[in-house]
């Protein structure tokens, strides 16, 4: 009997694996990109954010051109970028890097430079950047994949979610940090180079850093520092984003990242995280005593633990409401977005994919989303960047949100009890199912 069972199981497993790979391959072969590629068509502007998948060259100009010809013509057409290029390192010396070296020379087959194109010269940086993939999400290199594989990206009108891929294009282009056509390393070392994307409610890296002692020194004196110097010990009076996260110019930004953006709870003391902690301590000890650095990491651990204890309390409130079918309207009574599962389900917390469930949900679910995504992440960024006032504010906001969620849950239960007593059902939840945008989204997702 055993003799037959084992090979049968093996064959079934193999077949399931083949079927799985075939399904993923099929699902990725649609007109869009990623796991839901068969469900959407790109907005016309997406080619500029994800050139490998969507950029199509214009056929307005015919001919194959040499670099000097490109410059001559574009001096008139787009003088700004030619001036930029002339001031860049690419235009210096005898071996200049001309337009056609990165864009191609055939004007009807031009391409936007992808990391592979830049990597043909800057291969160390490209390799480092690609190496980041082994750390998983969140990371720069997997950012575009992460964006298009999010159910809300597949669901929402494509013009709307173009705002997502502008920042997530850090995976598909180098000019998020090295702005074209100057590509100045000194410029990308400045904290401002990061803040276009690292700002706003879920990741206030800008405000929390600028409010810290490090950021205050930078704001007061940074404009006079020599930014041509590499990001190594002794070159900068205070650390900047790049000094800590890309020390020595390493383009593998997840090298020390441990807390996963504050999106989910992690155990900071696993053997692997001990290595990452060691890396942080080594970096901080460029200026501070090791003991002090270890102490700060401990403070961050405690801050996270406290934050998660509050978040779990709120999650429990919501999950209990769900078990008692008190989340109204229920998933079955809402528009079918965001999609992502075969059966309608209220998704609560990181592991159930609540990151996509911030619209078409009940009020209390949105309350928890904001507590988790805005209050908590604000507190985490403040703690990690040394903005103590921000930590206090974030935790106060979380406490208020938790109380609000608990009160609301209590009222929902009371209301349900009244309804049962009086045998009255509330008005039909039809208001949740239609409207100018909701209807448009149903047709244009």
């Amino acid at each position, binding site marked *: 009997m055993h003799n037959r069972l084992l090979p049968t199981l093996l064959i079934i497993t193999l077949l399931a694996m083949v079927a799985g790979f075939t399904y993923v391959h099929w699902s990725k072969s649609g007109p869009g990109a990623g796991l839901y590629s068969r469900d959407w068509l790109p907005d016309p502007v997406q080619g500029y954010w994800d050139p490998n998948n969507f950029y199509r060259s214009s056929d307005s100009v015919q001919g194959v051109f040499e670099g000097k010809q490109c410059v001559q013509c574009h001096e008139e057409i787009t003088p700004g970028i030619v001036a930029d290029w002339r001031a860049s390192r690419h235009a210096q010396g005898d071996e200049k890097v001309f337009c056609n070296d990165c864009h191609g020379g055939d004007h009807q087959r031009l391409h936007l430079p992808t990391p592979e194109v830049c990597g043909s010269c800057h291969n160390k940086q490209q390799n480092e950047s690609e190496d980041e993939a082994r750390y998983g999400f969140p990371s720069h290199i997997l950012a575009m994949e992460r964006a298009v594989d999010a159910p809300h990206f597949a669901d929402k009108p494509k013009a709307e979610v173009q705002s997502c891929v502008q920042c997530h294009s850090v995976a598909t282009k180098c000019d998020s940090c090295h702005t074209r056509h100057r590509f100045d390393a000194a410029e990308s070392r400045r904290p401002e180079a990061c803040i*276009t994307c690292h700002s706003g409610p879920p990741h206030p890296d800008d405000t929390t850093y600028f409010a810290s002692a490090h950021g205050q020194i930078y704001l007061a004196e940074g404009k006079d520092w020599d930014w041509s110097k590499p990001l190594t010990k002794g070159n900068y009076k205070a650390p900047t984003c790049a000094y800590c996260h890309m020390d020595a110019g390493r383009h593998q930004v997840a090298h020390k990242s441990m807390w996963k953006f504050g999106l989910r709870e992690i155990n900071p003391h696993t053997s692997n995280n001990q290595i990452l902690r060691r890396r942080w301590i080594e970096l901080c000890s460029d200026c501070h005593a090791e003991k002090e650095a270890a102490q700060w990491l401990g403070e961050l651990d405690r801050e996270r633990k406290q934050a998660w204890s509050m978040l779990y309390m709120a999650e429990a409130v919501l999950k209990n409401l769900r078990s008692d079918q008190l989340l109204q309207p229920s998933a079955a009574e809402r528009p079918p977005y965001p999609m992502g599962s075969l059966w309608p389900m209220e998704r609560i917390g990181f592991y159930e994919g609540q990151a996509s469930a911030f619209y078409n949900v009940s009020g209390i679910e949105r309350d928890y989303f904001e507590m988790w995504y805005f209050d908590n992440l604000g507190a985490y960024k403040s703690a990690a960047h040394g903005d103590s006032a921000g930590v206090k504010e974030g935790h106060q906001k979380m406490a208020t949100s938790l109380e609000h969620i608990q009160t609301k849950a209590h009222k929902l239960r009371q209301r349900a009890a009244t309804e049962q007593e009086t045998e009255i059902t509330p008005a039909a939840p039809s208001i949740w199912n239609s409207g100018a945008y909701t209807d448009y989204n149903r047709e244009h997702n």
Partner: protein
Amino acid sequence: MRAIPQQRLTGILLALLCMTTPLVPADTSTPPGPFTDTECISCHTERDPDLIKQWRRGPHAAASKVVCSSCHGVQHAGANQKARQDQGCTGCHAGPASHSYSTSKHGVINRIAEGRQDWNQPLQRGNYRAPGCSYCHLHNGNHGDSMAPNHGPELRQWICSGCHSPRYVQAQLGNGKRQLEIADLKLTEGKKLIATAGASKDNALLKLQQSLAHHRKNILYGVGHQSPDYQWWHGQPALDGDLIRIREAIGKPHPESPLHTSPPGDSKLNR
């Protein structure tokens, strides 16, 4: 009218100078200031009538009390350089208007390159590493806001394509328009829902109505200033949140609603 005797004195000095150096141009006689706004306007109405006309018709016209000296200061020396820099605008245009720009790539580059930028250059294509407030809104010295909708998309297209390809600009402007259309759908949805509440509109709903308008404006700043953060986190998902809260507020049993007042057995609501 303090400037007149100074002007005379400079004239005499210049006449003396001209005897020895006959090629000095006559208009270097411009006195240094300080000037009152009336003086600026009276002189520049003669010299640059178009500019004054643009200012009078534009958003900074007399009614808004933004006069020459508000941006240029009162001295001639450095008056243009002063007005071309972002700091000249951000004092009044604080909050989302300037934050959406200062965190955009244009704003970031402008801030970093500030020190090495030659602010004497006219606000024309090729002269600036990145556009500051003035480069787009007062392009080529246009004092009537060159980005205002009444100028049509052609002028905007021309300004952006000093650095970007015309096709790129079209694609970006087109996407911006679509993003705003989507925001408008959300506004329509929200306002219609609020209208169903009829006379029982409470403060919470009125606040949510304001919130819709506020978040829609953030998207306008986001697409205008190319700030992904204002398009997204301060914009679209914030509008989604408003819609949830509006529905929640309407769905709540009102003190006078049937849930509280009708006896069991009400024909419509009974199970």
